[in-house]
């Protein structure tokens, strides 16, 4: 079975539908690009997949060894976060919260893992830096490392390159390509099709009648 299966989904808020009758599948190792204009419900779709809100109709099924816990999320960054006083490693380690349960502290293995993930996104030297003193591209890498700490089978990225200059965007796409090559399923919302589409194994266009190619 596919990793993620959307069946006849209607999504929205408080009974107001934003997306109607959406069907899609994501196989293991796919890179799904979600495109569509502002307000077409792309973020809503990701939020529904993550279980942050219920679908109004239809359902999402997970299979092939994937559960909600295995998905890491890179949200659209909010303004407050950019000025947050915290060290990079504090933020990356917070990705482990989902596995902590009632345990109040991180294990040594988790701390080492966090360092490895930072290395993986090419930001090993940032560990002791202050998050608010980083550039936008560096901040995105840090949040990506946090998402990787939370889950390693699938990544859900909401506009990962927004606000980055072309060079930083290019290197972030290269990073995403690397992660994809390592077998991680990628679901990515994006507005600039030029660099993103070559990565994609499937494209989901929101707005018109939903469907996947």
């Amino acid at each position, binding site marked *: 079975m596919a990793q993620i299966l959307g069946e006849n989904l209607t999504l929205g808020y408080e009974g107001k539908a934003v997306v109607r009758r959406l069907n899609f599948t994501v196989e293991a190792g796919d890179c799904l690009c979600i495109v569509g204009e502002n307000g077409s419900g792309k973020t809503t779709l990701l939020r529904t997949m*993550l*279980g*942050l809100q219920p679908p109004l109709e239809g359902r999402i099924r997970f299979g092939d060894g994937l559960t*909600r*816990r295995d*998905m890491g*999320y890179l*949200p659209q960054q909010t303004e*407050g*976060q950019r000025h*947050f*006083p*915290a*060290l990079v490693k*504090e*933020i990356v*380690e*917070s*990705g482990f*919260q*989902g596995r*902590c349960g009632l345990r*109040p*502290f*991180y294990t040594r293995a988790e701390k080492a893992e966090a360092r490895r993930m930072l290395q993986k996104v090419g930001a090993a030297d940032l560990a002791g830096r*202050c998050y608010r*003193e980083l550039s936008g591209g560096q901040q995105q890498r840090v949040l990506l490392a*946090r*998402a990787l700490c*939370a889950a390693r089978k699938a990544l859900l990225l909401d506009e990962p390159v927004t606000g980055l200059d072309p060079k930083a965007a290019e290197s972030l796409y290269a990073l995403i390509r690397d992660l994809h090559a390592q077998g991680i399923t990628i679901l990515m919302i994006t507005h600039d099709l030029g660099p993103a589409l070559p990565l994609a194994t499937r494209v989901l266009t929101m707005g018109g009648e939903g469907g996947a190619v």
Partner: protein
Amino acid sequence: MIATLQYYWTFPFVRYALAVGVLIALCASLFGVTLVLKGFSYLGDGLSHVAFGAMSVATVLRFTDSMLLVLPVTVLAAVLLLRGGRRAGIRGDAAIGMLSVGALALGYLVTNLFSAGPNLAGDVCSTLFGSTSILTLTRGEVWLCAGLAAATVGLFLLLYHKIFALTFDETFARASGMGAGRWQLLLAVLIAVIVVLAMYLVGSLLISALVLFPALAAMGVCRSFLGVTVCAAVFAVVCAAGGILLAVLAGTPVGATIVAVNMAGFALFRLAGAVRGGVL
């Protein structure tokens, strides 16, 4: 001056006030960092007004222990504001504002209509500004306050990493399956408890000072979340202890003195930050 302090130190109520005051200020500063960073700076203020309203009602109903009413009502308000506000379609700060003035007005109204006390203005004033009530705590109240405050600090230490995750990125926290809803609920309860405790120390109108000044001072000079938390805690403890001793020595109102010391400390930190940042 040392001799005067030694003389005052022989009175148990001074020692009680110092112990309880420092603990309460410590609690308020720990959670203050979260509140400021989440954009809920005014939550403490709003809740304290709710507590004032509840206190007035408790007084009118002649409750022997007003905390029995004040604590549950404040907890309820905190839960509503931190969790439910999102859904009601009213922006967080506006909801806090409404609840805040509403409770304040209601409390004063109730006191005015039904109060039997001879000194109405004085009673209201002491609830609002704390006056000297921390110096008149009974032994039982001291233990209750100290116990609650100690439990709050203990819980903060256990929940530290969860609080960090929730503060930095609530959406991510909820998506990660850490059970964000339940921790958020616990956080709301703890904040309400602190507000009620703080009302004894500085009175309802001045609580925000205990929440804001330490957090903002620490955020100006520290770069890590741990650093900010520790720095805010130390700042709050020093200012509370200094303020209480100063108030005892000079015979000034405790709450207002603590706030004044906090302001002075904050100015000092800003100056230090500016010097270090090379602005001065």
